């Protein structure tokens, strides 16, 4: 099937396979169609059907709150085409820049599942073939057992790789996480699409890095810091990681956090922030290389970053309220410009 897209600048055409999401077909063809979550919640991928018929897919998608059916709008990340279609996107759209890994569908199998703390697991996935991605990106991950695909950020950085690692937090009554946590899923087949996401680290970046993560939002920061350390980023620049969770028992990968903090102790600082129960003296004593603080992670970041914002690139990931609160603080208190802020809302 042939899809033609009219945008606020250029027009494009691309092929779309039977059952393939229109967003995926366009991205696969190297057209940077707008999206954010890739999974039906944010509404960023909305478009308008001009000619032809589409199947909207998931009708209860929360992102449909942003579409206006009177204008024949739909979500490209959920919809498939029933035949040739002409659609309109109300945004400037370009071709994917050179050097950005083009997303593709790839099959995989769960190779290993490891508990990190209560309700958080590390899931290693063996892929059919190697993929490339930029640190900070995510994949859409699905299983035949659960409708739809969910976004999970790569929590390691190694390239090219036929093995990806994710950190998955259990969500109460969540479709995919209930399936994943119900029993040992080692060996289960997955279908993936990616890499996706623009909250990325690339080695040419001249900035100091400030990573602010809530809960499973730590995952993309792990790949960002892995890659930044590998390229020697902190030999010349500084970095800060703020990792917010509720209580001590929710902290995970402490050894990895300590390794980051030990890498360039003066230049790369790691602060763990507990929102519900203040960190104990024993916790701080047991991990002398880490800093601990209490309160909301964005508030702690504002306190610890005083005087350190110059030439910063901020990375944010976690639950939407945490990301929104941090965005507010970064724009109105730290006064970063939007181009110095990269974020993923784990919606």
């Amino acid at each position, binding site marked *: 099937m042939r899809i033609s897209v009219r945008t606020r600048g250029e027009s494009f055409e691309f092929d779309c396979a039977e059952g393939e999401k229109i967003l995926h077909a366009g991205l696969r063809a190297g057209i940077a169609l707008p999206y*954010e979550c890739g999974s039906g919640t944010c509404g*960023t991928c909305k478009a308008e059907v001009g000619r032809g018929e589409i199947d909207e897919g998931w009708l209860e998608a929360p992102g449909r709150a*942003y579409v*206006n059916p009177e204008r024949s709008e739909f979500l490209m990340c959920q919809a498939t085409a029933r035949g040739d279609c002409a659609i309109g996107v*109300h*945004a*400037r759209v370009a071709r994917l820049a050179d050097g950005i890994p083009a997303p593709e569908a790839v099959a995989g199998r769960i190779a290993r599942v490891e508990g990190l703390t209560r309700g958080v697991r590390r899931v290693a996935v063996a892929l059919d073939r190697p993929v490339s991605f930029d640190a900070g990106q995510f994949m859409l991950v699905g299983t035949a057992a659960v409708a739809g695909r969910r976004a999970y950020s790569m929590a390691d950085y190694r390239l090219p790789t036929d093995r990806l690692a994710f950190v998955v937090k259990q969500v109460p009554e969540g479709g995919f996480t209930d399936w994943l946590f119900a029993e040992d899923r080692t060996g289960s087949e997955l279908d993936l699409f990616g890499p996706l996401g623009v909250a990325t680290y690339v080695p040419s970046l001249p900035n100091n890095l400030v990573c602010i993560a809530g809960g499973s939002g730590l995952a993309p920061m792990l790949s960002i810091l892995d890659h930044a350390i590998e390229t020697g980023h902190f030999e010349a620049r500084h970095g800060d990681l703020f990792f917010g969770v509720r209580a001590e028992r929710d902290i995970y990968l402490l050894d990895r956090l300590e390794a980051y903090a030990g890498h360039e102790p003066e230049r790369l600082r790691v602060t763990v922030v507990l929102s519900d129960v203040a960190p104990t003296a024993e916790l701080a004593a047991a991990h002398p290389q880490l800093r601990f603080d209490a309160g909301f992670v964005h508030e702690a970041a504002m306190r610890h970053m005083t005087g350190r914002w110059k030439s910063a690139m901020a990375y944010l990931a976690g639950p939407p309220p945490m990301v929104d609160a941090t965005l507010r603080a970064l724009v*109105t208190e730290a*006064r970063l410009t*939007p181009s110095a802020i990269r974020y993923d809302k784990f919606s």
Partner: protein
Amino acid sequence: MSWRRVCATDDVDEDELREFKVGDITVLVANAGGEFFAYPPFCPHQETPLSLGMIDGDTLTCIKHLWQWNLKTGETRENAESPLLLYEVKVEEGEVLVNLEKELRYGYQ
């Protein structure tokens, strides 16, 4: 319709944004350091309520994809692709009056 009372100056705190309804028209009022401005309620990008946005000096930022404008003129800053529409505003005796002669709308598609 022309000049209509939308709210009292006390109804909107400094550097806050609030929506008000006047008849069928929803107006977003900004108090930027004591000066008042009025806009259609949605972001010109993707209809996110701008009441969720943020004010810093003379910059207004949408919370959704961080488009920014000069809140006094509506001109785009940095990453915004289209300007903000402004209503005419005057403040008289603690009341914010807005010229609602014609409802302002964005041509989304």
